[in-house]
């Protein structure tokens, strides 16, 4: 059918940050939905958030409680959330207890009472909590047809009365098949709580949503005093790929390094700085941010190993003023160390900060710290998550610098213990080498996806002015092993016969 002839399905905003995006814009009006999941996973809170966001005195929400959590206790606990508006009680949001109707008159009694209340109140939203309890009372042999009829009549009634409906139930995944409730439902929201070691991760899945395309897969969500907050696994950034007509190079704040990189890091690239402890990765990242601030490019630092005040204090030791841009809002330092973080939440923090600051540069210091901050359940998928995050952020034109601590070996040159070099456009490697009985530091540009770069291995020093890159080591071989040999020593080992040849 062409677009003109199609019925327009209005979308209701759910009041749950991030959920509308997952649903494909909002919840279809007049849809008949099920919120399922185990006890304590946030079903009731989700429904409450929706009704308080949408109910009005003219078109109220009817919240039917049946046998489950008593309404008084529900009110006691739900009023702790900031979305709870006591002024809406009994006018825009009305609670009705159906326990007695169910006990005395069964499904027919429940249906009659719901019909009576709906016809009297003209609600825009109807919630039945817990619907599972309603059906369980009739769950015995020979009653399947009665249940199916009840569900269909209820769906018909509520849709006819132009109500968007939520049935809340403690279902297990194995019950989805052959259950008439799930067949009739237009939308099926499944909430999970996954326990991994000592942490709990909440996830939701939109198993079914008629009439519009929702984002498939499991999405992380969190419950705070503000209620649920959902994080789309696609991070809401699909289809926003930013294209550049010409590649702009961003200065690293270290002129000699810009030169080695062919003019700086290409805008929108993901750059990895790999090196062992104390090689100056964080300092380089700070210089990168400071160079951006000087060039009028706001930045964000996501730090996991030091607090924002420590971060800016350390920068000032190298003559870099991050405190002023921090106060002015052109720099944000995000410090996250909750140990049960999801990549999606981290992304949300970064995206919010990007919106606030207009950031062009992002530093993640460090990937190891980031991984440690994640809940164990997410660590297994760290590479995939990182890929999604980097792809999503670079797609909107953010240039990302990540630092990665590498174990120092003196026989080989590792680029990444995470095997994530394929995730990055550019790689800079910093490491220690032993020269004349002293530890020196060398730097090399290993990879630049979008252009030529220097192949030189150059020494550098960390000074009070930051990283100062020196000359190329000309008189040594095997520098990348960390134990180079002087060329002169090699030549002296050559035999007189070799020399003649």
């Amino acid at each position, binding site marked *: 059918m062409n677009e003109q002839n199609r019925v327009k399905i209005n979308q209701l905003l759910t009041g749950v940050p991030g959920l509308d995006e997952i649903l494909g814009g909002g919840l279809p009006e007049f849809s008949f939905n099920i919120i399922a999941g185990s006890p304590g996973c946030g079903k009731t809170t989700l429904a409450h958030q929706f009704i308080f966001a949408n109910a009005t005195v003219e078109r109220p929400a009817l919240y039917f*409680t049946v046998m489950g959590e*008593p*309404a*008084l*206790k529900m*009110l*006691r606990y739900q*009023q702790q959330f900031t979305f709870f508006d*006591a*002024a809406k*009680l*009994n006018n825009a949001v009305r*609670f*009705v*207890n*159906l*326990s*007695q109707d169910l006990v005395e008159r069964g499904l027919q009694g429940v249906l009659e009472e719901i019909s009576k209340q709906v016809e009297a109140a003209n609600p825009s939203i109807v919630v039945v909590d817990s619907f599972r309890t309603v059906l369980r009372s009739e769950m015995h042999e020979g009653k399947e047809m009665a249940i199916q009829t009840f569900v269909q009549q209820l769906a018909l009634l509520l849709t006819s009365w132009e109500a968007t409906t939520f049935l809340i139930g403690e279902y297990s995944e194995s019950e989805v098949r052959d259950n008439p409730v799930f067949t009739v439902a237009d939308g099926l929201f499944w909430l999970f709580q996954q326990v991994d070691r000592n942490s709990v991760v909440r996830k939701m899945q939109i198993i079914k949503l008629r009439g519009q395309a929702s984002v498939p897969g499991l999405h992380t969500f969190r419950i705070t005093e503000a209620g649920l907050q959902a994080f789309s696994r696609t991070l809401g950034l699909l289809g926003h790929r930013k294209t550049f007509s010409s590649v702009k190079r961003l200065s690293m704040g270290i002129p000699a390094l810009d030169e080695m990189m062919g003019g700086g890091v290409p805008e929108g690239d993901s750059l990895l700085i790999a090196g062992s402890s104390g090689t100056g990765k964080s300092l380089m990242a700070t210089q990168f941010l400071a160079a951006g601030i000087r060039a009028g490019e706001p930045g964000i630092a996501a730090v996991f190993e030091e607090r924002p005040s420590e971060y800016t204090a350390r920068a000032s030791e190298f003559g870099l003023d991050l405190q002023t841009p921090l106060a002015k809002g052109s720099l944000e330092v995000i410090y996250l160390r909750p140990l049960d973080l999801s990549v999606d939440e981290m992304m949300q923090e970064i995206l919010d900060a990007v919106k606030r600051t207009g950031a062009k540069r992002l530093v993640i210091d460090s990937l190891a710290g980031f991984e440690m901050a994640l809940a164990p359940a997410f660590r297994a998928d760290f590479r995939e998550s990182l890929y999604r995050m980097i792809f999503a952020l670079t797609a909107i034109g953010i240039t990302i610098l990540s630092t990665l601590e590498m174990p120092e070996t003196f026989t080989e040159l590792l680029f990444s213990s995470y095997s994530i070099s394929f995730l990055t456009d550019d790689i800079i490697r910093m490491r220690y080498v032993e020269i004349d009985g002293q530890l020196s530091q060398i730097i090399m540009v290993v990879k630049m996806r979008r252009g030529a770069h220097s192949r030189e291995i150059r020494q550098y020093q960390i000074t009070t002015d930051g990283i100062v890159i020196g000359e190329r080591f000309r008189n040594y071989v095997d520098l990348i092993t960390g134990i180079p040999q002087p060329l002169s020593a090699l030549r002296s080992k050559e035999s007189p016969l070799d020399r003649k040849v």
Partner: protein
Amino acid sequence: MEDIDVVSRVCDKLRRSLTALAGAVGFRSLLARALTLAQQESPVLGSLEVKSDGSLQGLNGEAAQAGVVLIAHLVGLMITFIGESITLRLLHDVWPDLPESEVKFEKDESK
């Protein structure tokens, strides 16, 4: 006689409002708890009983005079469970003409 009517009417109005919210069993439990607390304070309420439908039985003249204690405990329980703000809202739904300035709750520091 007048007191009996007043207490009965107040309890009945609260019963209708709270039964919709908490169910008949929920209201009955709440009123039974309020009665127990009230009886400790006013032994004259000892003859009172809460029937299965949530109505009161045994309300005689003396008990009716102390009925306000029962209602106070019922409202007190509501405040304990759902807080002052929501309780006030529910009371206003039952008695819309009740001026807000006349509704004052004294905090029980022992709780």
